[in-house]
């Protein structure tokens, strides 16, 4: 018998992350409610800093990295200490982790409304913040592995594997996705372009969902659900299969975000097939969670914590069935670019992440403060508000998605599009957007009730900062010959880390390397040329304003799209697009073929007041574009970086880029004058640059241009 050691668990850090997840959760949901209202009443777009395009990424970043991120750390710091029978490796690292993460969130909350964004969904933050994220993540990793290495328990429980798998995969994703070259303190250009950037983006974007919103939360499920139900997980064997199959398959599924795009067909097929395979481990995990409650269902009726957890696990099952179904090409042809995707995502975030976080918070708080929950009744009310809020949020969006997609694709018996004006398909679904906002409001009220309930609970007790406990010192385990393979690996965290990394790397490398190395994947088009300096600046304004949040730049090869927008998009058209701007949602029409479709004056008037040309439009007005002077300070630096990345600009173009920009700006300003737009110094405004970019879009393969070339 080894000596019994006395030590303590750090509860304060768990409490701090708990407060952070509650506060940021409310902030993120509040911003979500505002963007939902902006889609009904554009008047909610107040000043240039709070337009939909700028604060929608604020909402997604806040709920993913602030709400769920802090939720992960709260759960990990509590469960890891208990499962390892050890205090966290370093209190100092815990503090650096906590405050570093909050500062990152704060910097996101400041930079995103300022329009500082790299345009990649869920990776919008610019390079200095990317570096800060990497550093804080490494601090978390050292603290986690330090704790695992100094543990008193030989075995690593399945929750810990999920934490390890999460850490290594998120590290890989973050580094590869953010390979970019800085142009200035708050601007950078990604290393990959066009189709390759798209593949990397959705390899990252999908796995941000998989390895930030899912695997760490599965770890929490495997710890907190047995705790709350007071019984072990239904099948430990199933949890083993769940873990290995899930991390191996998930990494391949990214290309299902790019079905029917210019991505090569083989990559699309991989994305589809692996997505379908995901149903097996995901449902294995869901059933494992639900069956853990066998014999305890009578308690589910009374205990709000179990109720939250049951709905969370069920929502996990629903989202992970729906996701693969949406990856089937024929279903994706209907769902993609519509609100169906938004509804699907919210089953996961509101239902799975939200409800599990709430359940864990209600379970933890009385234990952290050594008292009872202030009000079980209030927690039950929160449960119903959360469940009804999720339903009221998602069902209208499914309805909206179907409605809009059917309208986009509807042809008359004579073979013409019935709804030729895109706006008709938007105004039709405004009532659904209203109901969605109501759902969001109900959910948010529930979160406020929880904050109040937790606050009152904390006031009724005293925080037990350190929990004194005892455990025998760890005895080195002597292996015996016929030992089960998994008993071996689960005692060896480093091997577990390497095995996880190997599995996720297989999928990543097989998908990404051929895309980067085989030229045939992106057939070159001779007439496609780099953007001029002015167009480049206009493109950066398009990114700053978050236009890609509502407009795609990818005409899919469907007759309903080529009739509406023009020739379908080719992969060779995007070779100079850094970053790619295909978008993932069409609240407004696709813009890839908008170049030359309207006169400059139409764009000018449309930006100043969209409703003047499109009554009923929900696009925000952008009057500041006609008032603010275009910043050309970094134009030549951008050209230099692009040349470094093999963009074939003429010799020394960076030296004459600003002159060339001014020449093109004067020409567009003159044409605007001729079209009746009277404004002083028009050629110096941001508006001219944005018009230059929009007029260039998709024109490189137009027959007249190809002849000229």
């Amino acid at each position: 018998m080894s000596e019994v050691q006395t030590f303590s668990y750090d509860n304060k850090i768990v409490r701090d992350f708990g407060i952070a997840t509650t506060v940021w959760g409310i902030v993120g949901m509040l911003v979500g409610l505002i963007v939902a209202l902006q889609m009904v009443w554009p008047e909610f777009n107040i000043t240039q800093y709070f337009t939909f395009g700028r604060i929608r990424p604020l909402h997604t970043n806040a709920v993913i990295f602030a709400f769920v991120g802090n939720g992960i750390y709260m759960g990990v710091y509590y469960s890891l200490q208990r499962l390892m029978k050890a205090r966290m490796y370093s209190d100092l690292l815990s503090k650096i982790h906590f405050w570093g993460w909050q500062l990152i969130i704060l910097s996101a909350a400041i930079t995103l409304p300022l329009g500082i964004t790299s345009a990649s969904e869920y990776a919008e933050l610019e390079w200095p913040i990317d570096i800060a994220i990497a550093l804080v993540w490494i601090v978390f990793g050292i603290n986690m592995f330090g704790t695992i290495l100094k543990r008193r328990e030989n075995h690593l429980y399945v929750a810990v594997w999920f934490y390890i798998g999460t850490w290594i995969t998120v590290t890989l994703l973050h580094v590869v996705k953010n390979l970019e070259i800085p142009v200035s303190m708050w601007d950078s250009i990604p290393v990959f372009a066009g189709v390759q950037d798209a593949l990397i983006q959705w390899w990252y974007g999908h796995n941000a969902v998989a390895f930030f919103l899912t695997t760490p939360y599965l770890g929490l499920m495997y710890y907190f659900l047995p705790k709350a139900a007071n019984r072990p997980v239904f099948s430990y064997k199933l949890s083993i299969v769940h873990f290995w199959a899930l991390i191996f398959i998930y990494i391949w599924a990214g290309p299902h975000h790019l079905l029917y795009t210019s991505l090569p067909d083989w990559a699309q097929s991989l994305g589809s097939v692996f997505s379908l395979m995901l149903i097996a481990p995901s449902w294995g995990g869901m059933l494992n969670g639900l069956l853990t409650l066998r014999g305890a269902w009578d308690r589910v009726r009374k205990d709000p914590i179990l109720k939250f957890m049951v709905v969370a696990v069920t929502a996990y099952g629903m989202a992970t069935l729906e996701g693969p179904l949406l990856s089937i090409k024929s279903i994706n042809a209907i769902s993609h670019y519509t609100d169906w995707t938004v509804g699907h995502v919210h089953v996961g975030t509101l239902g799975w992440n939200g409800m599990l976080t709430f359940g864990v918070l209600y379970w933890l708080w009385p234990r952290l403060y050594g008292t009872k929950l202030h009000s079980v009744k209030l927690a039950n009310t929160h449960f119903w508000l959360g469940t009804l809020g999720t339903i009221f949020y998602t069902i209208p969006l499914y309805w909206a998605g179907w409605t809009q997609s059917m309208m986009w694709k509807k042809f008359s018996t004579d073979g013409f599009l019935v709804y030729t004006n895109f706006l008709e398909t938007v105004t039709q679904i405004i009532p659904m957007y209203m109901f969605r906002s109501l759902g969001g409001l109900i959910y948010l009220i529930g979160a406020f009730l929880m904050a109040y309930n937790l606050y009152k609970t904390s006031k009724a007790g005293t925080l037990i900062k350190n929990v004194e406990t005892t455990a025998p010192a760890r005895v080195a385990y002597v292996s015996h010959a016929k030992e089960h393979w998994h008993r071996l690996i689960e005692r060896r965290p480093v091997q577990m880390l390497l095995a996880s990394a190997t599995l996720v790397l297989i999928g990543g490398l097989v998908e990404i390397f051929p895309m980067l190395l085989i030229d045939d994947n992106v057939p070159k088009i001779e007439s496609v040329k780099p953007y001029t300096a002015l167009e480049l600046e206009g493109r950066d304004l398009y990114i700053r304003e978050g236009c890609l949040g509502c407009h795609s730049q990818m005409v899919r090869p469907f007759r309903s799209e080529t009739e509406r927008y023009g020739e379908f998009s080719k992969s060779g058209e995007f070779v100079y697009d850094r970053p790619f701007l295909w978008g993932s949602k069409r609240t407004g029409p696709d813009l890839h073929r908008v170049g030359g479709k309207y006169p400059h004056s139409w764009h000018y008037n449309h930006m100043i007041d969209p409703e003047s040309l499109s009554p009923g439009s929900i696009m925000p007005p952008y009057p500041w574009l006609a008032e603010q002077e275009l910043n050309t300070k970094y134009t030549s630096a951008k050209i230099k970086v692009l040349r470094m990345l093999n963009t074939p600009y003429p010799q020394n173009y960076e030296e004459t880029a600003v002159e060339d920009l001014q020449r093109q700006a004067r020409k567009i300003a003159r044409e605007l004058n001729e079209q009746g737009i009277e404004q002083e110094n028009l050629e110096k405004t941001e508006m001219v640059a944005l018009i230059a970019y929009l007029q260039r879009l998709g024109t490189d393969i137009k027959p007249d241009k190809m002849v000229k070339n």
Partner: protein
Amino acid sequence: MYKYILESAGNINWMALFALLTFFIVFSMSIYLAFIKNSSDLDEIANLPLADDN
């Protein structure tokens, strides 16, 4: 017949085939290895969350 098979072999999507086989091997292996063991050995580990009341 065999000529047709040989001619069409070049059109096989090797990447997808490789991916499917890799998945099949990993998935089958993990199921097989997890289920050949008597569950009593794993009960102890499954009870770890419940072993600590602090």
